[in-house]
């Protein structure tokens, strides 16, 4: 550690240049967007180079942050003028940001390298790298933001990028639907975050986290927020904290908004890895950790109905247990991992809720490595098995795919919490210890312990089904090891999945101390609290043992054979396989409600409002008809009759006009004769 520290001290990154970390991938995305399709090498190269540079910058930032771990280095600037003052945003550098940046850039870099191999055959790989870069840039933006507004902006861009990537194969209806579902579901949570942010802005007049004593996470603002109460006797800080937490629920796939996460598997596997390990879901946990002073501000208040963190703890516990349960009954390799992510994120929230945000971040960092490893391993399997994802149809891949198997096994053991060597063990221990120490309730601890068994169990099942036995489909039978661009990242992540745990062992909790801003590390013997550790080791053994007994000892023979658990408890298994029916529940309630509202709005428009207007129009028309009738019958009638008789007379006379000259002449002659006769008759007088 000391050598690493000395090396890092050589590098510094001033905080006003922190934006470069996010800007480089964004620039790469811009270049990628303008690259024609055939320029895939360029796009991939630029994206990887940008990530690598960002990684170096992040290391420099980490060195800078560790030089003074207790300080929050900020650089604030005006975005635009609003009223009498500017609306300010800013960058923030502290150990939390720095560690996260290093993790995101490193894991992201490895995933990018993996993608070169994985997306080799895809015609749109330039677009893929463009979107991936946007994704990374947005996530890095979330990390370095010193303003809830800026964080929100990047947060939404993370949502956009995930939408684009989940729907990357948008010609598949399932992928398009999954992308939409992810966007909408997370947006529901984001509206909570938006409201929380508005409330915070309105109450404190700023959205900067740290601003020389005026930021929202500093004592002055927090004191003011806890002093006020709102609806239901909640402290304002509690209400704001819970609203902000809504955003985290959506993004981090917590109960009850976890439904989008498994569907997000429709994206290419590197995307799943990036979403589930380094970026999107981590953003929710990071958010809560970032605003932790706000979330915890109400802890000192005695007479409030509920503390914000209690809610976080219980949501986390429910999610951890539920995710692990559902994962047991999934048959798609990526879905098993997806629900395991849900479950692990529940752990992190649990840790946040019980007051140990450093444990949450520790688990977040270790989880990022081993979950990325597992997803990329799954990607490697899927790639080799010609996009066969059903574990019942895989099997026997241990032989042909040695590297993938070895690294996947490391990931599996890290996730299951196999003791001492693997990072997942240490971070999970930290969480369980924190839950144990919490004096709110012991239910979260029990949920966490139950999830430990289940996690070990379903991961054993997964490995047994995929890698052992005989291939159960043609695709699995022809599988061979993936190219080095895919296996090297696996090895890198596997190394991380092992080593990272040693940054935060109870004996030398360096990471925790740095995150808390302490320069001295106070370790203690592993035997302190060793009972809980023993218990969890036993539970892990139990889970793996059960998995071994059920799946490993008697391996699946054919792809269609029933799962042993399904045979034992068909109903429970079916319910879990159907993900406890949340999708159906939401479709029947929220979906139907919104459709009904839409129908109502439309009907109101068509019938009521437009009807009122039509009624007015009819009224006008009716007046018109009445006045027309009056005019025509009473006034025009007489005039019409007069003119009609005139016309008749004229017609009569015009009959005389034959146009024949003789006729006229005759009339003239007769008239002449008559005239003569009259003259002669009267001539005598």
């Amino acid at each position: 550690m000391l050598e690493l520290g000395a090396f890092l001290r050589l590098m510094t990154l001033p905080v006003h240049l922190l934006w470069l970390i996010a800007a480089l991938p964004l620039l790469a995305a811009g270049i990628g967007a303008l690259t024609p399709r055939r320029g895939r090498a360029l796009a991939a190269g630029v994206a990887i180079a940008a990530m690598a540079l960002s990684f170096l910058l992040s290391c420099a930032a980490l060195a800078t942050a560790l030089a003074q771990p207790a300080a929050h280095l900020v650089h604030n600037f005006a975005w635009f003028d609003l009223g009498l003052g500017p609306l300010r945003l800013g960058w923030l550098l502290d150990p939390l940001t720095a560690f996260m940046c290093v993790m995101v850039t490193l894991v992201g870099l490895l995933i990018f390298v993996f993608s070169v191999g994985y997306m080799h055959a895809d015609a749109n790989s330039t677009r893929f790298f463009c979107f991936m870069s946007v994704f990374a840039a947005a996530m890095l933006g979330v990390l370095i933001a010193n303003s809830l507004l800026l964080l929100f902006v990047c947060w939404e861009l993370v949502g956009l990028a995930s939408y684009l990537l989940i729907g990357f194969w948008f010609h598949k209806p399932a992928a398009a639907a999954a992308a939409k579902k992810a966007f909408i579901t997370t947006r529901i949570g984001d509206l909570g975050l938006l409201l929380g942010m508005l409330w915070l802005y309105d109450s404190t007049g700023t959205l900067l986290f740290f601003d020389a004593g005026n930021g929202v996470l500093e004592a002055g603002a927090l004191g003011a927020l806890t002093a006020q109460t709102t609806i239901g006797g909640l402290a304002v800080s509690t209400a704001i904290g819970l609203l902000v937490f809504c955003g985290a629920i959506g993004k981090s796939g917590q109960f009850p908004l976890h439904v989008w996460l498994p569907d997000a598997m429709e994206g290419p596997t590197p995307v799943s890895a990036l979403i589930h390990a380094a970026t999107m879901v981590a953003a929710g946990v990071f958010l809560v950790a970032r605003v932790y002073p706000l979330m915890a501000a109400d802890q000192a208040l005695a007479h409030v109905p509920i503390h914000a963190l209690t809610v976080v703890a219980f949501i986390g516990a429910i999610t951890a247990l539920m995710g692990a349960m559902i994962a047991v009954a999934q048959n798609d390799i990526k879905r098993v991992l997806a629900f395991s992510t849900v479950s692990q994120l529940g752990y992190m929230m649990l840790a946040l809720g019980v007051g140990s945000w450093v444990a949450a971040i520790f688990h977040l960092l270790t989880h990022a490595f081993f979950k990325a490893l597992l997803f990329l391993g799954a990607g490697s399997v899927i790639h080799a098995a010609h996009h066969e994802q059903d574990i019942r149809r895989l099997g026997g891949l241990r032989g042909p795919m040695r590297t993938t198997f070895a690294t996947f096994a490391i990931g599996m053991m890290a996730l299951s919490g196999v003791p001492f060597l693997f990072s997942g063990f240490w971070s999970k221990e930290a969480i369980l210890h924190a839950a144990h120490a919490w004096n709110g309730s012991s239910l979260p601890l029990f949920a966490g312990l139950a999830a430990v068994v289940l996690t070990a169990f379903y991961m054993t099942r997964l490995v047994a089904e995929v890698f052992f036995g005989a291939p159960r489909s043609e695709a699995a039978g022809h599988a061979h090891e993936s190219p080095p661009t895919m296996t090297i990242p696996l090895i890198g992540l596997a190394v991380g999945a092992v080593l990272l745990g040693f940054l935060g062992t109870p004996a030398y909790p360096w990471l925790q101390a740095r995150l808390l801003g302490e320069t001295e590390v106070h370790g203690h013997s592993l035997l302190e609290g060793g009972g809980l550790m023993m218990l969890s080791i036993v539970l892990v053994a139990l889970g793996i043992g059960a998995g071994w007994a059920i799946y490993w000892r008697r391996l699946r023979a054919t792809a269609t054979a029933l799962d042993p658990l399904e045979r034992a408890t068909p109903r429970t298994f079916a319910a879990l396989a159907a993900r406890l029916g949340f999708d159906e529940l939401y479709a029947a309630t929220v979906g139907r409600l919104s459709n009904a509202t839409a129908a109502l709005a439309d009907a109101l428009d068509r019938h009521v409002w437009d009807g009122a207007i039509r009624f007015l129009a009819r009224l006008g028309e009716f007046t018109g008809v009445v006045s027309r009738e009056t005019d025509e019958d009473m006034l025009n009638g007489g005039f019409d009759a007069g003119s009609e008789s005139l016309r008749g007379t004229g017609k009569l006379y015009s009959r005389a006009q034959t146009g024949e000259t003789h006729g006229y002449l005759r009339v003239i002659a007769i008239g002449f004769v008559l005239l003569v006769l009259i003259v002669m008759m009267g001539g005598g007088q």
Partner: protein
Amino acid sequence: MNLSPLHLCLLFSSALFCIGLIGALCRSNTILVLLGVELMLNAANLNFIAFWRFGPAPSAETGVIFVLFSIAVAAAEAAVGLALVISIYRHQQNIRLQEANRLKG
């Protein structure tokens, strides 16, 4: 019967007028109708001359001047009439008056 020259002249012009009138009424050929009209006109001219010659004041030349005007007008009228006839002919390829009825109201 003791007829004065005036009477004779008037009888003659009446006869002439009647011939003209019948011609104008009965012929269908437009030129013949024009001839009839011309005859009636000449009957009137004859009357003028007769009343001038045998009237109370033969020294005044009013009757002659009237007739001279009338003849000049008749010549012009005949020219116009014949022009119309030609025009009618051009339109309907004959000069039957019964068919020239397009001006009817």
